[in-house]
């Protein structure tokens, strides 16, 4: 994997107003799982642990060292030189990313997402990453049912693992 030093913060990022957080579907500041589900979980996995797969070699969001603004920046702008796409319409085109436009990026230009996110969605998903995934250990039954719901067998392997003391599920 080619490496590139990323400027971690876009100081003065015009759209980075805290008003987003209020308009996003946040619950008690936890961010928005629905956005994570549609835009991130394919490659970073439902639990954010990343790793290999058909979506590429995605980094672990549970082990990330980035803060919320940095996560939001990577969501907006992608990660140059890797498969992590940019999710902000107009990035590198009408809006500079990492102080660059498309022409400056050459082969490091990240791919464009198939699912553009609105600014409040980017804020909400960054909140979700830093409050719900960052720093977490192995995925749990509770996290699994939060993602997949309680009526599917998708979390049965965690039920088996966590034994009869685990929270009961509607199954």
């Amino acid at each position, binding site marked *: 994997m080619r490496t590139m030093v990323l400027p971690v913060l876009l100081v003065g990022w015009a759209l980075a107003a805290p008003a987003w957080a209020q308009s996003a579907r946040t619950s008690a500041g936890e961010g928005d799982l629905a956005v994570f589900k549609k835009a991130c979980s394919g490659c970073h996995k*439902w639990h954010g642990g990343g790793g*290999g*797969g*058909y979506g590429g*070699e995605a980094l672990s969001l549970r082990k990330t060292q980035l803060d919320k603004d940095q996560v939001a920046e990577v969501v907006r702008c992608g990660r140059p030189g890797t498969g992590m796409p940019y999710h902000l319409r107009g990035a590198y085109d009408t809006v500079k990313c990492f102080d660059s436009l498309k022409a400056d990026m050459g082969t490091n230009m990240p*791919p*464009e997402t198939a699912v553009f996110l609105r600014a409040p969605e980017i804020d909400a998903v960054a909140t979700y990453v830093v409050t719900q995934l960052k720093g977490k250990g192995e995925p749990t039954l509770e996290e699994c049912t939060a993602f*997949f719901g309680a009526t599917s*067998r*998708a979390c049965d392997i965690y039920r088996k693992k966590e034994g009869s003391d685990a929270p009961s599920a509607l199954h």
Partner: protein
Amino acid sequence: MTKTRNLRRILAATSLAALTAGAPSAAPALAAEGGVTQERLLNADKEEGNWLHHHKNFAGHRYSTLNQINKGNVKNLKVAWTMHLGGIEGGGIWSHGGLEATPIVENGMMYVTDGWGSVYKIDTRGGEGKLVWKMDPKTDREWAGAVACCGVNNRGVALWADLVISHTLDGRLIATNKETGQVAWQHQVADPDKGETITGAPLIVKGLAISGVGGAEYGIRGWIAATDIKTGKEVWRTYTIPGKGEPGYETWKGPNNAAVSGGGSTWVTGTYDPDTDTIVWGTGNPGPDWDNAYRPGDNLYTDSTLALDATTGKIKWHFQHTPNDPYDYDSVSENLLVDVGGRKLAIEADRNGHAYAVDRTNGQFLWATPFVKKVTWTKGINPDTGKPFEYDPNKDVQRYNPAATPSAENKNADFCPGNMGGKNWPPTAYNPNLQYWYIPVIESCNRVTHEAMTQANLKPREFFTGGGPSQPFRITGSVTAIDVKTGKVAGKHETQFPLLGGMLATPDLVFTGEPSGGVMAMDAKSLEKLWEFRTGGGVNAPPMTFTVDGKQYMAILVGLGGAWDKWFIDSTPELKNIQTGSMLYVFAL
């Protein structure tokens, strides 16, 4: 037929049968003919207007002798009728389902599936389509969709007696009453808790429903299983990765106990040779896909063609295409059984970019030829051995062309064909008169980033791939014809996009569809395009043809799903504009 005592569960199917009660139904005369037997399956080609097998006949030819639609008049082909289907809902990691099924037609009644495994019975008489019933299996979408590597897919049904036999992504085999749409029985054959899913259509041989499994990206141990349709009981299950003490186990070396998670999935429907009572079935990649140092040895029987005794499931012979595969080059493709030049062949278009012929009586290699424009992982296939020239039987870990091989020393590797292969599941077709074999080709390269795996990475329901692909290169497609008499490429019709649907051959035509929406007919010999219709959706399923009321129709499902629009779309950015859909198109003159 409706015995239930040996079955795990019975479900009350959602059925439209009740809603359509009172409406005109199948004519009694046709219904009486409806029982499908081994005799009828053996002679499926004699029922010219029907399409009884997934691959049209046991030999997998997808060749119809119908010729009302021919190269002289195909330019007049028009939409006769359409029908919207369902199944586009998301589940697991998937935002939507797609359509990959081949319609089955018996006496004017069509049976198709959507990606979540709902079965639709459609009355095609009278120049229009009427839904007779829909059987919704209530697939556990999250359970299955979270471990389906490559989309919400189902490739169709099979018929036996008065039953429609189908699979679901969450691993069930279901028998549905053909007349009523009620579920007669169902049986869990694959386990999504282990990362197993089912996307293929069943193959029916002598009353046994043969099922294959997907999941080589999730550390499964692949298998092929046979269920007695009469009792719903499993008769045999043959693992594609040998167990301790079995022949081939020695091809899994090193400290990782790699055979237990060795992959070797079987997710494409195979073929059957009645002369020798042999099922010929392809197997998928070894796991982890791109870290072949994790699993030193040839890794039998991954990336292989397997011949199984249909009665016992015992392996008769095997032929392996890409030993110790570091690319994800499944050999799951259907093996067509053809007789050419006095020899009995099994021919397979492999994901590794080469078309192979082996003697189907013993698995002996005969020839291989590249069917893609660009191959970089090997200099070619050694005509004496059938193995890649660089293959060294004394090495436990193969590097082939090291610059094009992902490894710890080559963390980012570009190789061609890309990991989705020169040809993926979309089926080929064979014209027995011309002895031309038509391959739907993905002309591709891509990049894989290698990740070294340890046993700690192996977890249930988690990808176990040893890295992942990205798509820095544009990918196109072609229909490539192989002259099976010579084993050489006889023609190539290039397409802007990869071919993700599959082929149909008729006496003087070849049909296929494109993910950008076009359905087209080509001259069987020159591959010149003679007709095209833009469906406005993405074609991800094979065309088929049938007659009803004495008139020939061509049918195809349209609804882009599968792996492409999630994992490979960056190589075909225009396809981002293709909308989700679920539609049956039927064409006639």
